[in-house]
């Protein structure tokens, strides 16, 4: 069988002498510019090398074959590590492709060797693509995890006073974020049994009709639950834009600064604690 012959020959070529693995490591470390220690690289590649030889030994040159499951697992692990450390896709794939350079046929190679080498190239190409895919998947996971973290980070609900909570909004508001803000605010109203909430939009760079709509919804939802919302931190330009857009906040109390809003809320709640007093 041609395939079996080819893979047998490849095993011979790969295990000809220790230099193969050595050259492979050297070729890879040259492109990585010393960002990974040689020892670590040697460990990674020798595992990969061994499992590759084993897979070839078992026969078959199809990378989707059962025999290659360990090779694939190692490659996934390798590309994950590369993606986490901020290497480029090229720098990741070179770990696989460098193996080709090492085994490149010379002038005195037999025709059989060349044929076997071509088979190997095909196999390594597929494995290289597989590596890139794993790399991209990891990158996407990182991005979505970061987006989620950002969402969490940017919406703290702080307790300002007994019965008063505030949400300082920072950054651009979109539907997804507003939804999170709304849920968190409402939940914290329940948890802390606060009757007043202040939404501070000092850190929101622009307010359009959509954002205003979201704010209104939040206020109405809080009212349904029995709490009053005050909106503060409306900057002059934003007030102008809102008026130009024809947005009306109706009977919702709006204040220029968080300080004004807090004072207003404390007055409403009967100011159980004196302002600037002993407490």
């Amino acid at each position, binding site marked *: 069988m041609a395939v079996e012959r080819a893979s047998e020959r490849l095993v011979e070529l790969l295990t000809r002498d220790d230099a193969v693995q050595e050259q492979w490591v050297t070729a890879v470390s040259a492109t990585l510019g010393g960002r990974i220690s040689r020892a670590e690289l040697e460990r990674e590649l020798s595992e990969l090398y061994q499992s590759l030889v084993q897979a070839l030994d078992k026969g078959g040159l199809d990378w989707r074959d059962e025999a290659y499951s360990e090779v694939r697992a190692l490659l996934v692990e390798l590309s994950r590590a590369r993606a986490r450390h901020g290497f480029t896709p090229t720098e990741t794939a070179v770990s696989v492709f460098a193996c080709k350079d090492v085994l490149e046929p010379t002038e005195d190679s037999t025709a059989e060797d060349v044929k076997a080498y071509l088979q190997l190239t095909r196999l390594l190409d597929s494995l290289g693509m597989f590596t890139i895919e794993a790399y991209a998947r990891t990158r996407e996971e990182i991005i979505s995890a970061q987006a989620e973290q950002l969402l969490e980070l940017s919406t703290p609900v702080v307790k300002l006073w007994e019965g008063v909570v505030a949400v300082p909004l920072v950054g651009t508001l979109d539907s997804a974020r507003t939804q999170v803000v709304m849920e968190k605010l409402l939940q914290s109203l329940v948890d802390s049994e606060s009757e007043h909430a202040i939404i501070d939009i000092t850190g929101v760079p622009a307010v359009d009709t959509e954002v205003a709509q979201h704010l209104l919804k939040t206020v109405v939802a809080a009212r*349904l*639950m*029995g709490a009053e919302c005050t909106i503060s931190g409306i900057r002059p330009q934003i007030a102008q834009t809102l008026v130009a857009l024809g947005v009306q906040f109706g009977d919702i109390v709006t204040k220029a600064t968080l300080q004004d809003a807090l004072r207003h809320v404390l007055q409403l709640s009967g100011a159980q604690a004196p302002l600037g007093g002993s407490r």
Partner: protein
Amino acid sequence: MSDRVPVLKLGQVLLVSIQVDLEDQIVLDLQDDLAERIVATGATGVVIDITALEIVDSFVGRMLANTAAISRMLDAETVVVGMRPAVAITLVELGLSLGGVRTALTLEKGLALLERDRTARTGRP
């Protein structure tokens, strides 16, 4: 006909605590019961506790508004208490703002609200 929501009397206030999934018939029965009880007891306030409700559809939302209107006609103020965040968001998305219904976070705050109201109206504690 087994499921009926009990209407409890607590001083001058009628307390309705909804613990079951609201089917349309239960809602209609409750409205009848409540109106009758308000007249029978001469209550000045109604507290509807929906803490246990996880889902409120537009029908129930309208019922709450209707009940509030009916009670007001019978000289009793209605307070809806304990609405969950998810329920509030749903109602807002449905475009129901329950105009005319007063709300409070907890049963305690709801009762306090009614008490304050009654004091303000009668001018004596």
